[in-house]
């Protein structure tokens, strides 16, 4: 549909319509716990209250947000970290009673004037990694939670039967209710609950309800995502955005939460009660105009969302093909953005929060489902985004319709497309080598490009299939690696090198073989290999703007801090650099987009009434970033060994990969390793691969050395008490814990550089105790 100016009530998607008796469903609810609260007033971005719900004990209460908490943790993800620190133990795992699922907002969240200001931040102990996973997500839930009167929702304990938590801003009541008759899969459940809890039978009322849920897949895998709904008054469906990474949905279902519902009474453009709304409007409108004028010449986000990246990644050998073996492929042109453009519904404000004119949340309406329980029905598919399409190419699925099918089922089953896709790609590669086969895969022919098998695998996960393979494979790449090795199937080294996970979390969809800085951007991270901390491929590989270890370390300090800042405030990162002012290239540091950084300084000041500068923004992040790393140490990880990455992300694991890019690798052996061309010519591929392997592994260790040094950590990657004190994060329990860990490392001889330095090379410091002087 291309024609615009269609009256909202006349808009049609062509989707299959459902008629449920939601009244009857609601009558079946039994209220297990109830809590009334007073209407709050948001002051300069903060509601100053946290809502705590314990599902085991039935306790529901409010916790105050102190000024000290704001000063140290800012908000959003920072608040989440603080709440977790106060509530869990170092032995807490994802399914422990005391593990929490936290949804936070941030002081700038809920602003409507500046694009991308509606993000919620979700935190928990991840089933995949056993450490904290944070995931940011759009949708209306976060802003509504705040407008109802809470900066964060903290859920502890487990219910005995399926429940929903309702935060009703109209009745000023929180209830925990059983919900026996509702569906579990998100696309249906979210619609049922949206209709059930809307005050009136109108689209405007339904738009005031937002639901968080995870489907059946989340129950039976470690890939559970959270689906955050946002009701679309034109399409008349609750659309959804996903907090995908790290198994947050798995934790939701482990707590027996079917859904969380937030309903807002009313809100407007100044519900955040900003200190200076005029500046907010000025900065926000300037960005709207920039998007209006420049997006179509830059990223085309308004037209195709992040799918515009597919052709760029393919062009630069960065698009993962067949489990990251290759970075480009001739047939990949079948999934370039023009093919999705044809399918996307056009001329609709596609922001996942009001006022986001970047509008990247593209949607296919009236998609006919090809397989599984909803086969033949017409549905709205949210996406696909670049990462999901990248999963397609990674599995060898080069057909837009199958990618939509994969996207739809992952979403409604509550599965993270990234983890699911990356893992299936690994299983497919193992299948190709005969390490897995039909029998070992419970009759699934999981070879590359077999879309039916991939979808059947997902359906079986959702059904809770008890097959050994399904049981292990649904827990992710790390568990399958261990399983294959235990079974003695295949070469251990090959399995370790090809399975794309680090810290237990699956990689997102970029090939990083030729960008050392990006390898660090995936490995030297807090939660695991996700591109939200740093995306340095172009800076590093294409523009060669950060050639030395020191440069790369600086980038791996600045950008993770900068990107963390969005999570502290409840913002989306995309409007920062997916549209750039037309004179950006002429600025001192184009990669930082200085004008937009200034926008964010103005934005935070305008909402909070503070008087911060851009250095202060980085400092806000540094506090929380170091805190999270320290918590990882506390939980038994967060050291150099945990920042390990598989060799597939560093270089060619198989001969086929080497040969496919032979010229490039041969040239590097000459240019970077100083071998003579003649020698290289004489060597066989295996020999060359071994030399490259040693070299690249060592490069990564040297990078880690430089990054730890820059971040003020020990050479084993541990944040130091000195650094923490400098950041004014002086919690005595944490400082003692860190000192103890550093002393233990010292005894174990771990406080040493990881790289092998030749006589003409220097490590970051001659003094291995450099951190004591911070």
């Amino acid at each position, binding site marked *: 549909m*291309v*024609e*615009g*100016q269609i*009256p*909202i*009530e*006349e808009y049609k998607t062509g989707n299959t319509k459902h008629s449920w008796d939601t009244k009857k469903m609601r009558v079946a609810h039994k209220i297990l716990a109830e809590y009334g609260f007073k209407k709050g007033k948001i002051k300069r971005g903060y509601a100053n209250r946290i809502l705590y719900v314990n599902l085991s004990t039935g306790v529901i209460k409010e916790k105050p947000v102190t000024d000290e908490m704001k000063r140290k943790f800012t908000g959003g993800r920072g608040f989440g970290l603080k709440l977790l620190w106060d509530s869990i133990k170092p032995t807490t795992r994802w399914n422990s009673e005391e593990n929490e699922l936290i949804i936070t907002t941030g002081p700038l969240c809920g602003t*409507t*004037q500046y694009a991308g200001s509606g993000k919620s931040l979700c935190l928990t102990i991840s089933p995949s990694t056993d450490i904290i996973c944070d995931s940011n997500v759009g949708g209306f839930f976060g802003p509504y939670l705040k407008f109802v009167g809470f900066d964060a929702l903290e859920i502890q304990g487990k219910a005995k039967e399926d429940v929903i938590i309702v935060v009703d801003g109209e009745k000023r009541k929180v209830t925990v209710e059983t919900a026996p008759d509702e569906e579990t899969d998100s696309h249906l459940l979210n619609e049922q609950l949206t209709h059930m809890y809307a005050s009136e039978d109108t*689209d*405007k009322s339904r*738009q005031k309800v937002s639901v968080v849920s995870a489907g059946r897949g989340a129950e039976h895998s470690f890939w559970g995502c959270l689906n955050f709904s946002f009701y679309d*008054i*034109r399409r008349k469906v609750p659309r959804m955005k996903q907090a995908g990474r790290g198994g947050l949905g798995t934790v939701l279902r482990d707590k027996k939460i079917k859904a969380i519902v937030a309903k807002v009474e009313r*809100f*407007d*453009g*100044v519900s955040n009660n900003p200190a200076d*709304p*005029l500046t907010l*409007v000025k900065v*926000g*409108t*300037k*960005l*709207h*105009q920039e*998007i*209006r004028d420049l*997006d*179509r*010449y830059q990223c*085309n986000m*308004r*037209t*195709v969302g992040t799918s515009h990246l597919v052709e760029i990644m393919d062009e630069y050998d960065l698009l993962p093909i067949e489990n990251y073996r290759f970075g480009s492929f001739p047939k990949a042109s079948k999934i370039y*953005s*023009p093919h999705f*453009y044809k399918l996307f519904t*056009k*001329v*609709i*404000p596609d*922001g996942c929060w*009001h*006022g986001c*004119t970047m509008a990247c949340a593209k949607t296919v309406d009236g998609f006919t489902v090809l397989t599984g329980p909803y086969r033949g029905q017409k549905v709205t598919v949210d996406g696909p985004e670049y990462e999901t399409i990248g999963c397609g190419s990674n599995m060898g699925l080069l057909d837009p319709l199958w990618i939509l099918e994969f996207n739809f089922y992952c979403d409604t089953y509550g599965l993270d497309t990234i983890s699911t896709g990356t893992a299936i790609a690994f299983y497919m590669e193992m299948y190709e080598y005969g390490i897995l086969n039909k029998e070992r895969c419970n009759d699934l022919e999981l070879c590359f490009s077999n879309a039916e098998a991939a979808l059947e695998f997902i359906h079986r996960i959702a059904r809770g299939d008890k097959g050994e393979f399904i049981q292990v494979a649904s827990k992710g790449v790390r568990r399958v690696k261990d399983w294959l090795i235990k079974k003695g199937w295949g070469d251990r080294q090959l399995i370790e090198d090809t399975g794309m996970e680090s810290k237990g979390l699956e990689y997102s969809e970029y090939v990083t073989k030729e960008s050392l800085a990006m390898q660090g951007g995936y490995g030297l991270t807090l939660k695991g290999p996700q591109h939200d901390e740093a995306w340095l491929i172009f800076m590093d590989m294409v523009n060669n703007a950060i050639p030395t270890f020191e440069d790369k370390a600086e980038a791996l300090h600045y950008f993770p801090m900068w990107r963390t800042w969005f999570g502290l405030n409840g913002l989306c990162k995309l409007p920062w650099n997916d549209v750039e002012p037309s004179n950006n290239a002429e600025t001192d540091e184009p990669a930082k987009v200085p004008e937009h950084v200034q926008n964010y300084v103005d934005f935070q000041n305008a909402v909070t009434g503070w008087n911060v500068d851009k250095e202060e923004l980085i400092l806000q992040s540094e506090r929380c970033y170091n805190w999270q790393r320290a918590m990882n140490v506390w939980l038994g990880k967060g050291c150099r060994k945990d920042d390990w990455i598989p060799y597939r992300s560093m270089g060619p694991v198989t001969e086929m990969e080497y040969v496919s890019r032979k010229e490039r690798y041969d040239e590097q052996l000459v240019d970077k390793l100083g071998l003579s061309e003649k020698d290289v010519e004489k060597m066989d591929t295996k020999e060359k691969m071994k030399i490259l392997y040693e070299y690249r592994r060592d490069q990564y260790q040297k990078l880690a050395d430089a990054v730890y040094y820059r971040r003020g950590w020990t050479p084993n990657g541990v944040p130091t008490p000195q650094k923490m004190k400098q950041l004014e994060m002086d919690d005595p329990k944490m400082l003692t814990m860190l000192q103890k860990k550093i002393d233990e490392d010292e005894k174990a001889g771990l406080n040493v550089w990881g790289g092998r330095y030749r006589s003409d090379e220097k490590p970051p410091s001659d003094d291995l105790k450099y951190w004591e002087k911070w």
Partner: protein
Amino acid sequence: MQKARYVKILKFYPEKCTGCLECEKACSQIHFKTKDGGDKSAIMIIKKNNGYQMHVCDQRGLCLDMCPVGALTRRKNGVVWLDKDICVGCQACVGFCPIGAMRKSEARIEPFKCISCGSCVRACPENALELVEKTIDDIKEVVYHKQGV
């Protein structure tokens, strides 16, 4: 619902205008109950080298598809209307209006625009303004970014 087919828009006769700004004052009276004019008026009279220009919404409705909450609609009389009770103040329409006719005053977060009410026409002592009828299909535009350009 019957779709509007015609809409009245403002026509300006610059040769008659003396720059007295009575139109702006009348407009701000409608929108903000004040005779301030200026940023509280949906119509703007701008002095150019040797005359005046009018700057006002031409009811093309390009903003209609920008509104995330449905606060902007085309009414029965064809006028593009902003319902400020529904509006969430995001300024998407302000930022995307190609002629800057969706106006924002410091007085409130929600923008405002010309509703072809004719009060400026009546206020003009020189008869420099007139409401003329147009066929909507001839003027309407859509915010639509084709891929590529």
